[in-house]
């Protein structure tokens, strides 16, 4: 799939996500809009996965460690055919499979349950190690939030991955500079992230996390450096694509009112490639 088509899908995902947040009256719109391009590229260009056989042993693995943005993953999984598209309408409804954080026992395509931040990367290290033990070629991708990188468990896993030479593991940090209640810079600043990961023995690359060409290029298997886990610091904007949400900490989990919803939807439609 070419990057134009990927942008078309990402735009559709953003709109469906926004609609679901509006209708459910809850969600994490800011972080969903910032991670959408990354998820779209992974599922429609980079990863080898089969919706008809979601547990195929040789599949590539994706762990959305910033599990509060599950809705973006649900919409991408629906686009890809893992779950019915109309099931998105049940998001957060009583007894729906689609609760606020992804659940592997309920939702095909989800690899591990996340929600408490700082769980995905250690699990990803285990997955990548299993692939090495199996002499298998599948890759493991983990997406964390940048605020999430404040959890110490991530740094324990970062050390393990380097020690274990997990070049089949890719950590993508959704670096939107905002956490729940404030900017990272005003809370517990981690920037610059790249030299920290490099100091821990990782191969690090920085990209514009909304530029589909850059995302696809950096995630290509040809970019793997033998013996080193890869970290991609994806510079993104929380709320990307909606002018009044973008880079605005108020939109971590705020729900748009009708007027805001209509404006946001109009902006997204106008931006459709």
């Amino acid at each position, binding site marked *: 799939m070419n990057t134009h088509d990927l942008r078309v899908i990402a735009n559709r995902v953003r709109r469906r996500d926004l609609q679901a947040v509006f209708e459910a009256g809850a969600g994490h719109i800011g972080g969903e809009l910032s991670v959408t391009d990354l998820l779209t590229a992974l599922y429609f260009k980079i990863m080898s996965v089969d919706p008809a056989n979601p547990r195929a042993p040789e599949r590539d693995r994706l762990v959305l460690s910033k599990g509060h943005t599950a809705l973006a993953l649900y919409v991408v999984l629906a686009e890809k055919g893992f779950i019915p598209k109309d099931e998105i309408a049940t998001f957060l409804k009583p007894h729906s499979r*689609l*609760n606020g954080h992804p*659940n592997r026992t309920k939702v095909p395509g989800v690899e591990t349950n*996340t929600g*408490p931040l700082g769980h995905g990367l250690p699990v990803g290290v285990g997955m990548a190690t299993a692939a090495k033990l199996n002499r298998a070629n599948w890759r493991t991708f983990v997406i964390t939030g940048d*605020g999430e990188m*404040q*959890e110490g468990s991530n740094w324990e896993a970062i050390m393990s991955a380097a020690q274990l030479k997990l070049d089949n593991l890719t950590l993508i940090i959704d670096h939107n500079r905002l956490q*729940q209640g404030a900017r990272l810079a005003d809370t*517990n600043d981690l920037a610059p992230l790249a030299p920290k990961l490099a100091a821990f023995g990782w191969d690090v690359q920085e990209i514009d996390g909304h530029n589909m060409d850059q995302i696809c290029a950096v995630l290509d298997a040809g970019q793997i450096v033998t013996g080193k886990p890869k970290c991609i610091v994806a510079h993104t904007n929380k709320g990307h694509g909606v002018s009044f949400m973008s880079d605005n900490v108020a939109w971590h989990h705020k729900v748009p009112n009708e007027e805001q919803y209509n404006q946001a939807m109009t902006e997204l439609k106008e931006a459709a490639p």
Partner: protein
Amino acid sequence: MNAPVEPAKMHDCRDAFVATLEQLGAANADIVAVCNDSVGSSKLAGFRDKFPERLINVGIAEQNMVGVGAGLANGGKIPFVCAAAPFLTGRALEQIKADVAYSETNVKLVGISSGLAYGELGATHHSIEDFAWIRALPNVPVIAPADRIETAAVIEWAAGFEGGCFLRLSRVGVPDLFAENHRFELGRANVLRKGSDVTLIANGTLSYRAMTAADLLDAKGISARVLNMATVRPIDTEAIVSAAAETGAIVTCEEHTVFGGLGSAVAEVVVDECPVPVPMKRLGVPGVFAPTGSANFLLDEFGMSPQGIADSVTDLLKRKR
């Protein structure tokens, strides 16, 4: 929930918590707050604006947060360590054990939005194991207030108490159950309603539901005592022994798994201390990860609507001799 109260009379107990904390903070400069990127969800913006230096937001790092709290206590501060209850207790349990309970530090652990409060967000965000986890530790009283008045009283008590404690708060609206001048006493249950046929023992958001269930039972000629048991440890043995002797049957209600929480603590007393055992029923989350739904929806689902509680009482009374 089959007994709605006017929304205006339902209170989010976090408001009473922070109002009291801000008052105490104005009178005592040693009071500090520690949080994990939870200024909003712990409602600490007012405290931060009044005492900017005394709000320590460590970021999304709960183990660090509890350790920092213990260090602050070592330095003579009175830290209120505030975080969503599942992450405070689940993520930092060993810090709570070693740095607070075992080291006997003066750390006030405030679990926000406990129980099923995060409803639709799913089981990772439900804190329905915290009574069991923390009550297994020595030296850390476990307390779940039932309304805004008891919440304020508990916070005031905690600030004056020399030692660590776990205060389990909700965000789910509850009406007033106590009179304004209520004072909290550690390990002392309160009779919210007198009764002679059965005792309902509850705390947190379930006390109000238990009171409503008692009304329903009253209409059927069943006289239910309601005991508000905010302190889960140290538990009020005397109140439980009297309830067993005087009413002959006990139903416990909690926003917690039935494994190891309030019901278990009450059952332990009934087994160990009552000369004659009495029939008991423990209502709570029945040892499963909850499906998707709001807190109130899930409580109803798990048989803790007022009608559900009343029905459990009626069933239990068939076993009463």
